[in-house]
């Protein structure tokens, strides 16, 4: 019986947030169940009792105002409470912790391309270490997709030209469905795979299987040289281009007088659409666009490298 229930009503619960979401869900279920059963019971009782020809008392007019106020005010209070509860969980869902491992995800019709910080790539599968918070940095190469892992109770659209973030902490080993939840065309229902949550030893073994690949930062560094970024932004550059050391996560003054935080989106756009935001004090035609020359995965590697520049060399020269 429990097994049947588990299959039918209780999806696997494999992330810490899932517990909070389920609590809220069952809270809503009980509350709404009471309301629904109450309304239905009232309707049935009234229908039987006041059916034509029964011996009940009839009355054409009744006082309405006190009742109206009651049944408007009580739901209002309950709904506001529910909103606050749900909002709090949502807020928690939206803020990844600082120690989360960052995994890059690129969606395209119809597959998921994953890259771990070690540089290891996977397609339609993500291997995760139990109890280690994970932050997915995601973008799409074509249409809108959505990373949905029911067992983690999380879901986030993956948009072209924009980074979105999804995070979770897996708390239970096992294999869980990975679905695309935003309709993306012909292969939509095939665009998915598995999330494998592994115990430390199994995970270590999986890592050890890795044929030698360069890490994200190393790959980014290689691209930085190979694609000519270093010629202008590197330490020995003669061209007057903004230095990148320590820039990540810090404010940048723009030529329009505005200031933006140099986050993933900003660096992504600066590489692909350099004319969009010009750093104050630099000419606007210096940087060539890399639109069409760098794939989304390569841009992510470059971002990984630029982030590392910030953390290793400290202050801005």
């Amino acid at each position: 019986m429990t097994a049947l229930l588990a299959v039918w009503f209780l999806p696997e619960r494999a992330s810490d947030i899932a517990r909070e979401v389920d609590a809220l869900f069952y809270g809503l279920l009980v509350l709404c169940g009471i309301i629904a059963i109450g309304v239905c019971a009232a309707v049935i009782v009234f229908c039987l009792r006041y059916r034509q020809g029964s011996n009940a008392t009839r009355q054409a007019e009744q006082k309405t105002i006190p009742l109206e106020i009651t049944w408007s005010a009580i739901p209002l209070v309950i709904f506001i409470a529910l909103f606050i509860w749900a909002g709090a969980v949502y807020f928690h869902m939206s803020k990844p912790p600082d120690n989360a491992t960052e995994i890059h995800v690129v969606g395209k019709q119809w597959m998921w391309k994953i890259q771990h910080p070690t540089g290891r790539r996977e397609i339609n599968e993500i291997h995760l270490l139990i109890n280690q918070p994970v932050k997915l940095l995601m973008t799409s190469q074509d249409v809108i997709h959505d990373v949905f892992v029911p067992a983690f109770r999380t879901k986030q659209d993956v948009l072209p030209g924009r980074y979105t973030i999804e995070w979770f902490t897996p708390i239970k080993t096992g294999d869980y469905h990975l679905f695309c939840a935003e309709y993306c065309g012909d292969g939509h229902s095939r665009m998915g795979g598995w999330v494998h949550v592994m115990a430390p030893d199994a995970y270590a073994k999986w890592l050890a299987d890795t044929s030698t690949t360069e890490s994200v930062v190393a790959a980014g560094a290689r691209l930085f040289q190979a694609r000519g970024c270093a010629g202008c932004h590197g330490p020995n550059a003669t061209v007057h281009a903004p230095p990148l050391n320590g820039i990540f996560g810090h404010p940048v003054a723009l030529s329009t007088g505005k200031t933006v935080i140099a986050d993933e989106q900003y660096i992504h756009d600066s590489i692909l659409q350099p004319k969009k935001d010009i750093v104050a004090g630099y000419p606007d035609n210096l940087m060539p666009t890399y639109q069409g020359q760098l794939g989304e995965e390569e841009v992510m590697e470059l971002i990984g490298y630029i982030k590392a520049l910030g953390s290793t060399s400290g202050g801005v020269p």
Partner: protein
Amino acid sequence: MSAESPVAHQFEDAAQQREAATLGMWVFLATEVLFFGAMFLGYTVYRLKYPEVFRMASEHTIIVIGTINTGILLLSSFTMVLAVRAAEFKRRMALIAFLSVTALFGIAFLVLKGFEYAHEINEGLFPGSHFQFTEADPYTARMFFYLYFLMTGVHALHVTIGVIMLVIFALRAMLTLKLERLSTAVDLLGLYWHFVDIVWVFLFPLIYLVDRHS
């Protein structure tokens, strides 16, 4: 609008018919507000997202024509008011004259707009395959011109429909024996015409004036 008998069968009297027609026009204009509103919203979103490029692109519109056209439309609203009054007081010659003058203003607006379009298309600013823009990101500039041609184009379509209606009404004023039948209809056409003017009064600063330096 063009009932053969003075009061259509579903109405009790002429006053009810007139009120219904007027309210109908107001509701229609409410629909139109939302129709243009969605485009204005899209324009505003991207104006805020790409302020620099939109500014540079907007400087390629011809502000002189834009300003003259604003004046023309404002004048045409004035002559439209006079036409409505003439219909109310059943002054046939004045009605025909003011409807015609309003139509002429509308045509003048369209001709000038046409010159501006021709100039912009020659400069390669029409967002088609020949689009070229060198000062800033061409994609973004193209978006400006796309929205510009779309919004002013839909507006010009409304002006054109207004002009056609004005001409028809002027002809009807010449031919019909009983002017009172036209009075409500001219009134409604007036509402429509003022609405088209107001849309331009919003379009003009949005496209030509915001952030303009030159």
